[in-house]
């Protein structure tokens, strides 16, 4: 993705770099998991044709929407818990 800081206009601290890298890893992992889970649930294994049928497309839409919503709700809860416990810093998601 983008270059972090070296020779850029603003100087960035190592912590900011680490947090952004962390966030990127979390998002990438979420994406991988979502693709795997939703294609397991929604895509028929007989593979009669190469294009998504209407049922599969609707299923993938719904699966990804639910996954995002579940992920964001759980992240909110986790943030509340860690904030309540006094932890924090840049552990945001």
């Amino acid at each position, binding site marked *: 993705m983008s270059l972090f800081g070296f020779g850029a206009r603003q100087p960035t601290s190592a912590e900011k770099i680490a947090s952004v890298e962390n966030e990127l890893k979390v998002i990438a992992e979420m994406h991988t998991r979502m693709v795997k889970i939703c294609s397991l649930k*929604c895509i*028929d294994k*007989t593979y*009669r044709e190469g294009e998504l*049928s*209407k*049922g*599969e*497309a*609707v*299923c993938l839409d*719904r699966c990804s929407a639910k996954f995002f919503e579940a992920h964001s709700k759980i992240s909110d809860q986790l943030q509340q818990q860690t904030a309540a416990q006094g932890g924090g810093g840049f552990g945001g998601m």
Partner: protein
Amino acid sequence: MNFPGAGTPGANPGFNPNDPNVKWLTNAMESCYAKTAMSGVAGFGLGGLFGMFMASMAYDTPYHTAGATNTPVSSLPWKQQLKVGFKDMGSRSWSTAKNFGMVGALFSGIECGIEGLRAKNDMGNGVAAGCLTGAILARNGGPQAAAVGCAGFAAFSAAIDAWMRMPKEED
């Protein structure tokens, strides 16, 4: 709408698949409305051809003409015979075209709707759509006729679906 050459190199010039307009058009073509319309038009065309074919086989009775009161067709002058024949063929093929078009549009629309609701792609969609289509087509004959129409059309649809879903034989 098209940006020739602005997509991946080596792609078909004038058809960039990442163009939002192309994506929108592709999505619209796969929507239930477009599928219904296309099936209706295809059914209309096929019904017209079928009706024309069937009309050419219906001249076994001398009184079976529209517009000729009591004179058999073979006694009219040659040009008149042709005119009567073409008019009958036209009206018959128009009526079968309308029927087939309606059947095609109904079945396709109902099946697409059921598949969109269930979010699954299996044979149940075709069977349920066939049952509803058969019942709607036979609605004027009462509940028993509707049930028979449902069962018949559902069986027909299931047979065609089963045949189309047979796995291809590997060579």
